[in-house]
């Protein structure tokens, strides 16, 4: 027989107190797991939203002068008006960032003015396949250009020239086929002619000049780190992030998570107090029993070990109950909040953290009762004094 048998036997005998302590711990664990699961789900939702914006970082050439522009329209430069470019070495520098797994896509973009039936329009040269992967709002009528003589038209261009898929279009005197039309995006892409970047470079006779590099980080958490590394790799370029706007939109959800954490902390505190008081009461009831243990040679550390073993056994039960209840509540919670975009994402971290919290609360709550039990004078406990 070992001390753990004595501890287990005592819990079996005092089922009511054991159940009360287990319940108290399980409630705290469930609250913690619920809030943590919601926070992890929130983070996952933010990442999803981030993905809908496509690229979450944009690298552009440095401004050589004060720009005279308003509402995104460059009116004039204060000096020579020269446009600066990035080049292939800059693109390679972005692709060569450390921890490449942080990057989902690196898309260099060239912008050129081209002539279409006497009209000056803006053509965009890009990596069409990569762009269609990250720009989830791209809806095409037709198929993505696959050949050097195929282009994708923005909706405004299509409407202005009355073109449809399969029609010919002359660009800078060269004939191209419209392979697809982009559904209305509500943005600048509606007014673009979009083609492969190498094709645009060949058409305009300008190679190696990149107007901007669209970078997609793999997660919200990676954006800041990637932005920092981009600024280090390209000190003269400008790096912008679209993360902040998403975070602003999620402030309400973040505030809810903070409130949840505060409430959870209170619940954990109260639970710990309940456990401590219940265990102190149990120790007092076992005064004579502890006196017997001391009389037959148990030392103070043996008595303390008995109390802590009982706490560990109860924490195990509470961990299982609390984690299951917490995950269950987390899976149901989004359905209770109207218009919430937060879904439930199972994360093993919530399970591990819940188990650790159960043992931590159990241990901390039983330190004082264990100390009181260990310090019991055997003669007093046996009522010999």
């Amino acid at each position, binding site marked *: 027989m070992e001390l753990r048998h004595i501890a287990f036997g005592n819990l*079996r*005998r005092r089922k009511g107190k054991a159940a009360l302590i287990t319940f108290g711990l399980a409630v705290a664990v469930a609250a913690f797991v619920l809030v943590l699961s919601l926070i992890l789900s929130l983070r996952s939702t933010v990442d999803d939203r981030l993905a809908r914006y496509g690229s979450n970082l944009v690298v552009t050439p440095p401004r050589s002068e004060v720009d005279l522009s308003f509402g995104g329209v460059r009116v004039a430069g204060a000096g020579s008006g020269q446009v600066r470019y990035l080049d292939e070495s800059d693109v390679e520098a972005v692709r060569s960032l450390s921890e490449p797994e942080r990057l989902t896509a690196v898309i260099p973009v060239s912008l050129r003015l081209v002539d279409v039936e006497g009209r000056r329009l803006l053509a965009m040269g890009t990596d069409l396949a990569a762009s269609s992967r990250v720009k989830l709002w791209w809806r095409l009528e037709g198929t993505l250009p696959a050949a050097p003589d195929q282009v994708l038209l923005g909706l405004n261009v299509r409407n202005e020239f009355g073109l449809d898929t399969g029609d010919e279009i002359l660009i800078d005197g060269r004939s191209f086929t419209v392979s697809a039309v982009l559904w209305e995006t509500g943005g600048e892409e509606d007014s673009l002619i979009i083609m492969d970047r190498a094709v645009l470079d060949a058409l305009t006779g300008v190679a190696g000049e990149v107007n901007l590099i669209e970078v997609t980080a793999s997660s919200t958490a990676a954006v800041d780190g990637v932005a920092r590394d981009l600024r280090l790799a390209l000190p003269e370029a400008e790096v912008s992030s679209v993360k902040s706007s998403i975070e602003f939109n999620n402030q309400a959800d973040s505030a809810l998570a903070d409130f949840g954490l505060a409430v959870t902390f209170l619940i954990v505190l109260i639970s710990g107090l309940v456990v401590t008081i219940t265990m102190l009461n149990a120790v007092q009831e076992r005064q004579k029993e502890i006196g*017997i243990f001391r009389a*037959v040679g148990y030392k*103070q550390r043996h008595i303390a070990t008995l109390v802590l073993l009982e706490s560990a056994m109860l924490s195990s039960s509470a961990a299982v109950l609390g984690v299951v209840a917490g995950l269950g509540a987390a899976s149901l919670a989004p359905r209770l909040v109207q218009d919430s975009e937060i879904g439930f994402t199972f994360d093993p971290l919530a399970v591990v953290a819940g188990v650790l919290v159960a043992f931590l609360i159990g241990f901390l709550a039983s330190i004082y009762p264990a100390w009181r039990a260990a310090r019991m*004078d055997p*003669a007093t406990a046996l009522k010999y*004094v």
Partner: protein
Amino acid sequence: MALIEIDRVRREYGTADSRVVALGEVSLSIEAGEYAAIMGPSGSGKTTLLSILGAMNPPTSGTLSIDGIDVYALSQERQADLRREYIGFVFQQLELVPYLSALENVMLPLAILKEKGKRERALEALGRVNIDERKARRLPSELSGGEQGRVAIARAVVNDPPIILADEPVGSLDTSTGRQILDQLRRLADGGHAVVMVTHNPESTQDVDRVIQILDGRVTCDDGPLACVVPA
């Protein structure tokens, strides 16, 4: 040198303003194989003396030596070791742990030891008091009064201590069952253990070698049972 030696032990309780003298300057020796009864009315100090003998209650002054060791000069940890090695207790109302089987109750002093063969030692101790393995698996509530008493004695001797201290071991038992317990204590003394029993019942002292009568914290008689005991 006697196995147990108490030299001018005094025990007081309370504050400086109101002191109570539970035991006043008691000196005595007990040899191995001696069966002694400490008798006295309630509040006479006999339980206090027993607790001092049991290395659980440090005296206000005086010394207790067991096998030449000054017990209360030891640390609390070493006193616990000494209790385990030298002293077996039979408590008032037996005090078997209700959620442990008879076998587990006997193994209680062994649970803190990192040794093999604990179960066999406990079964052997139970065998000496005629408790078989089948009964050993039962809870105390499933045993008769006499069987519970024998389990309590087995628990006291499982470590083979040289000293057995019994606090009113038959107080709550019927006459027949009590007789069984007293016979077991006699046998232990005959086997070489020093047995010290606290009792207030003169009838329990029939088999003892020596009666130590205590009144108001002082030894008033220390002789054979016929000399010290006033028949009830």
